[in-house]
């Protein structure tokens, strides 16, 4: 690894000041950054440790306002938080399957999003939950919907000097449920061949709303708005689910690589959407 300087920021403003000159990268859990420094995929002169900034460590849940999740909060603090675990089982699906125990001790959901891998497991479920990215930069703060955050493999809307501060996730409403499901050939510690994040809101046996998003089948995690919209007003049954799953399959634009072929991944999108919706529906029925 080439020489790098290390700076620890104690406020958002200090981090933005350190980042705005360029040549610097924020360091949260480091489970992607340090690997990328070592293989020189990223080549900053300075890493700015953002774990000392209060806003990036925030985990505050309110049943009416929803969840504010600091961008540097490690996965284990999410699934060890009983209120968050109860309100957002879909988020817990991803916090407990990214890497293994050691990785979950450091890796953050904010880092998974800013790393912007097409296979980033947390991103489809954030999209399904309607999460908003809260960004601070030299020109103040702004908010971007997570479905608009990633612009290509490893690329995001963040401009030089901008920092992801936190994620805002709306409060779960009555009759809502969410889930993330991925396919990997192993049982754990692997990169998704395909992944699907879904959320539904049920009312009187019909879908009031639904959001479906895919991982590993496009240059960015893919929000398939049409798949969720197709469920609105439809009865909660296998026929409705099959229509949405078919739209998700057709929306996937995967490549063939060592993890799977185009045909296989499109098929997986259909299967995972169907199974994911069934889990989300069960969770929604328990969420009275």
């Amino acid at each position, binding site marked *: 690894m080439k*020489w790098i300087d290390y700076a620890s920021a104690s406020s958002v403003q200090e981090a933005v000041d350190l980042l705005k000159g360029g040549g610097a990268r924020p360091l949260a859990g*480091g489970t992607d950054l*340090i690997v990328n420094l070592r293989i020189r995929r990223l080549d900053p002169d300075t890493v700015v440790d953002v774990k000392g900034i209060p806003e990036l460590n925030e985990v505050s849940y309110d049943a009416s306002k929803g969840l504010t999740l600091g961008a540097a909060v490690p996965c284990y603090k999410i699934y060890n938080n009983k209120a968050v675990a109860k309100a957002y089982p879909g988020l817990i699906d991803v916090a407990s399957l990214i890497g293994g125990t050691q990785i979950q001790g450091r890796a953050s959901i904010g880092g998974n999003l800013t790393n912007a891998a097409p296979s980033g497991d947390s991103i489809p479920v954030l999209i399904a939950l309607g999460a908003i990215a809260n960004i601070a930069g030299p020109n103040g703060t702004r908010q971007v919907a997570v479905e608009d955050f990633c612009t290509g493999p490893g690329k995001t809307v963040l401009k030089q000097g901008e920092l992801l501060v936190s994620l805002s996730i709306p409060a779960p409403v009555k009759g809502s449920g969410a889930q993330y499901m991925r396919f990997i050939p192993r049982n754990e510690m692997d990169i998704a061949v395909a992944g699907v994040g879904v959320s539904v809101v049920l009312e009187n046996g019909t879908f009031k709303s639904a959001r479906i998003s895919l991982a590993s089948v496009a240059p960015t995690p893919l929000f398939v708005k049409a798949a969720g919209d197709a469920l609105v007003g439809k009865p909660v049954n296998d026929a409705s689910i099959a229509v949405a799953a078919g739209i998700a399959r057709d929306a996937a634009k995967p490549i063939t690589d060592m993890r799977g072929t185009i045909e296989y991944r499109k098929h997986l999108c259909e299967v995972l959407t169907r199974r994911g919706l069934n889990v989300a529906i069960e969770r929604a029925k328990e969420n009275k």
Partner: protein
Amino acid sequence: MPSKTHVQTTINGEQVDFLCEPRQSLLEVLRDVIGLTGSKEGCNDGNCGACTVVFDGRIVTSCLVLGVEAAGKEIGTIEGVASGSTLHPVQAAFLEGAALQCGICTPGFIVASKALLEQNPNPTEHEIRFWLANNLCRCTGYDKIVRAVQDAAVRMQEA
């Protein structure tokens, strides 16, 4: 000329001062600067778990922590697991159950297994296997490791 950083930390209960370059991982610092060579370098990218240490109460792969991040933290390594010449129950169970062959992965497995049993004294086989998913062993096939952790759980409850 770039200069080294002075870091003050606690390792296995003792205050330690060291100088390191900001690019050095905690694993490099432990092994090459401080001389604690029990933590092993396997993959150096967070997959194999041979470098597992306790970092402020939580297990992490020390290859993916910068040495400078250790400032003010409490670190536990394999060297702090035994009490003098008395092995920790996890160590004794691994040794007596032959849960190792070449031994490179063993420090990481022991640190991770001890952390599991401290928070979950009676884990199921499923829980053990998922907790240890971030530790790779190319010799044993894992079966003896899982049985050693189960044995250690019994020993710790009897102790």
